[in-house]
């Protein structure tokens, strides 16, 4: 399995697909931190960053999964011994890429964005929110990858449209029961993230796991 994850990461790194979400990431970070964040507002910035980068994480996951040609996936499935291992290796590789991107999004403002270093508690919550963002983004990315949505146009529409829909629905009263991106941004802004985080995390993880489970199920007949 590790060897297959490394194969997928190597293929992704050598193709030019990595640059697309990376440029998106740096463009967004440049906008977020164009003016210095005043002391005490770091967590609010992290919450916005984690929520808005969901679409970049989804884009990266989709790009990674689409790097491998369809027939190579069949070869990888037989080489790995079981189709499930190929699907799992793809998920792990996508998570690894997004962990790298989330690390950039957390570390970069410490150097150039924040006027002061955030408290350890704020830093931990910022990391937690980015983890939630990358998990939700990865799930959205898997559902828009080529085995599930073969048409690139439809896939891009579902990826960006799906993200916008998530944002808009999370603004409504039912928002807490979907992927609660807006609620976590608001909670961080109101200084109430600490007590809200377990509920927000549970809802995000529930929908992400449901999305990934649907992806794994669909891949059974869509190798």
């Amino acid at each position, binding site marked *: 399995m590790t060897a297959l994850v490394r194969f997928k990461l190597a293929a992704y790194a050598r*193709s030019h697909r990595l640059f697309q979400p990376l440029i998106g990431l740096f463009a967004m970070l440049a906008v977020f931190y164009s003016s210095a964040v005043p002391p005490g507002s770091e967590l609010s910035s992290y919450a916005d960053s984690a929520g808005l980068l969901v679409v970049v994480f989804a884009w990266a996951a989709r790009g990674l999964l689409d790097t491998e040609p369809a027939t190579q996936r069949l070869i*990888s499935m*037989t080489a790995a011994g079981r189709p499930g291992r190929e699907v799992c290796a793809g998920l792990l590789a996508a998570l690894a890429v997004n962990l790298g991107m989330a690390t950039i999004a957390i570390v970069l403002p410490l150097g150039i964005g924040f006027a002061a270093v955030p408290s350890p508690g704020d830093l931990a919550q910022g990391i937690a929110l980015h983890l939630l963002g990358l998990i939700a983004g990865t799930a959205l990315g898997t559902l828009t990858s080529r085995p599930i949505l073969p048409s690139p146009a439809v896939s891009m529409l579902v990826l960006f449209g799906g993200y916008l829909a998530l944002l808009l629905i999370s603004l409504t009263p039912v928002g807490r029961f979907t992927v609660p991106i807006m609620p976590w941004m608001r909670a961080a802004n109101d200084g109430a993230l600490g007590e809200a985080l377990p509920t927000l995390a549970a809802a995000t993880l529930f929908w992400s796991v449901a999305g990934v489970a649907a992806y794994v199920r669909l891949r059974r007949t869509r190798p």
Partner: protein
Amino acid sequence: MRLSQVSFRYSRRGPWILRDVELMLRPGSVIEVTGRNGAGKSTLLRLLAGIIPPSRGTVTDRPRVVGYAPDVFPVDQPFTVTDYLTHMTRVRRASPTAADELAVRLNATHLMDQPVGDLSKGSAQKVGLIQSLLAPPGLLILDEPFAGLDEQTRIELPVIIGEIAAGGGTVVVSDHQNQLQNFPGADHWLVAAGAVTAQTGERPRQAVIEVLVDAAEADEVEQKLRADGYTTRRAS
């Protein structure tokens, strides 16, 4: 390995590609699969390889190591042949020298430093064959393996197939060009209208003997042999 009552369709409302297929694959057997385009040969091969599960029915006792060479090797990959095969060797946990040994046998050593994307159809086919053979397969599935291969590899491939069968492996080859027509003891499956018809063991083992005769008597000897029902071929 056995397929019992296996049916397959790609979606719940889609048409059945294969229906109620009953097949037995004995260890050491070589099976040639034929059928017109779109009959379901590739789907059958993917079911056998375990890439897709049957919609109904069961596949039991599939060997642990499965080698699969697709009909068209995917060249759209950012690796050299060596890098690609090194990755596949690690995925399969095969011997590090396996790729080089197979490259010698399949006349592919000159390809090793080339980018996969620059390979011709026949050369790409060889890389597909090499990766399928990296770990000695208990089940080897070759989808149209002879397409685009050079003469030397065309001759070598049946030898490799014979070796795997002799070692107790099962080899399934989909073959439009009937390159395995004279393969001794091969079973034949015909895929048509969602069904697979197996013709097992009908073809007796064959051998080639050379008979040296005076050129003047060649016609006479050939006529006698043909009258006795033998196939003859003039070597010069």
